[in-house]
């Protein structure tokens, strides 16, 4: 058999196969999915010579370990963590040679939540609608990794690119600052409610996941009660359920929903949100849309 594959030695708390996701199917109820810290995913791929569309592994907090069945080159990015090959320390954020039979271990995150493991050739899981991303809301794509599982690797694209500086994107921060563009349903909230959004001291809730970053803090006061007819929800939507606490929709969010969206966080700020551990202070910085003049 071909040995371009790896066996999962330690799956960790939650490790999934991710790529850039499956955009363009929201009207069928298909979430975007894809790497939550997209810059870290792209970087990991570049470090091993893959196109940025190749699939990587996204870990959560505790990392993961895999035994490769063929010589390969791997790289770990995203949340900083100790990296070892057969127990010997290896660099984080750089290409690492992993000989056949060796165990690559990405340890627990020393800051942030999600590390990315790229392998030359990419994780060759079965694509669904053009993407290998695991979608935890709707169950599309490969299941989360489990101990003993085996996943195939693709054919390497060529020698890894030479790298002399690694941008440190999406690294965890002491305070998560999230600019957000008000609307489309900011009129469902009172002036006081919008002031609470701008000035309130929020924290990342431990109930956060790939669907949404939940917050704890002061409730946003609503002007309108009742239900909103279901409507399209973009990535980065700040949806406010009846408890008044904003939920920031991440990649596995539902494509339509019935709670008002007070504002939308631009996509370039979502990588930082994906790395914010429970308890991290959150500050929202609302502004009006450029489109509304």
């Amino acid at each position, binding site marked *: 058999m071909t040995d371009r594959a790896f066996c999962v030695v330690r799956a960790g708390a939650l490790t999934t196969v991710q790529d850039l996701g499956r*955009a*363009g*199917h*929201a*009207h*069928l*109820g*298909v979430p975007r999915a894809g790497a939550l810290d997209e810059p870290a995913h792209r970087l990991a791929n570049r470090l091993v010579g893959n196109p940025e569309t190749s699939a990587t592994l996204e870990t959560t907090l505790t990392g993961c370990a895999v035994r490769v069945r063929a010589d390969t080159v791997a790289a770990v990015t995203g949340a900083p963590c100790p990296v070892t090959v057969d127990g010997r320390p290896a660099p984080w954020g750089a290409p690492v040679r992993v000989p056949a039979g060796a165990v690559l271990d990405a340890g627990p995150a020393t800051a942030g939540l999600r590390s990315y493991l790229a392998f030359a050739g990419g994780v060759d899981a079965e694509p*669904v*609608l053009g993407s290998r991303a695991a979608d935890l809301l*709707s*169950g*599309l794509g490969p299941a989360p990794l489990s101990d003993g599982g085996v996943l195939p690797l693709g054919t390497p694209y060529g020698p890894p690119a030479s790298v002399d500086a690694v941008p440190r994107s999406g690294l965890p921060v002491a305070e998560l600052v999230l600019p957000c*563009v*008000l*609307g*489309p*349903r900011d009129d469902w909230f009172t002036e006081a409610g919008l002031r609470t959004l701008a000035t309130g001291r929020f924290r990342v809730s431990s109930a956060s996941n790939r669907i949404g970053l939940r917050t704890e803090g002061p409730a946003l006061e609503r002007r309108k009660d009742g239900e909103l*007819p*279901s*409507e*399209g*929800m*973009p*990535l*980065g*939507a700040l949806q406010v359920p009846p408890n008044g606490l904003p939920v920031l929709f991440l990649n596995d969010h*539902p*494509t*339509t*929903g019935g709670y008002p*969206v007070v504002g*939308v*966080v*631009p996509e370039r700020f979502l990588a930082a949100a994906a790395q914010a551990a429970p308890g991290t202070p959150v500050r929202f910085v609302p502004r009006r*849309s*450029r*489109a*509304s*003049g």
Partner: protein
Amino acid sequence: MSTRTPGGRAPAGRSPLPLRPLPVGDHGLLVELEDAAAVEAFHAELLRRAAAGTLPAVREIVPAARTVLLDGLADPGRLAAELPGWDIPPATAGDRPAVEIPVRYDGPDLADVAALWDTTPEDVVRIHSGTEFHVAFCGFAPGFGYLTGLPERHHVPRRATPRTKVPVGSVALAGPYTGVYPRSSPGGWQLIGTSDVDLWDPDRDPAALFSPGTRVRFIPVSTESQEA
């Protein structure tokens, strides 16, 4: 807000469709319309323009109950300014034949729905299977369509206590909608029947049996004939 075309002239024989574009981030628009029929007409117009290459590049077009979301636009402000001038014909039923969904009307809430409709379970079957539905929008799960078509007197509330597990294939009612559960999940809809139809198959093209605008008919089948 004004729905007149620039210069105040409406296109001959048709009033412009009242609509309200709302900003969604820096690259999106949520276009609010008057009712489901207007959503359908506007959505059809977007698809026509996309096919003709006259719609600006957009990542997602998501019709819903009263709105259409356009996401991933380079200049949403420009499109928002253009929209009131569009001449949008009413939606037509389309040429595609209706998708037929065989149903065993054996749901645990059939009698409750009959009581809410002030009629018999037999009549619920007759009315539901005699209605032509169409998919107003999708969401909740891949392959789940929100189907409209029942008259308002047959709209029903969700159950007071949602079920923790609704079996896959359940044919259900809630508010103005009928739906079929593409997989087992929690849910509060009133269950009137079961179908074996495969609503979602990623290996099939198209993967989803229901997409916005699809016409749907439910065909009653006897519970005996379906027992394997």
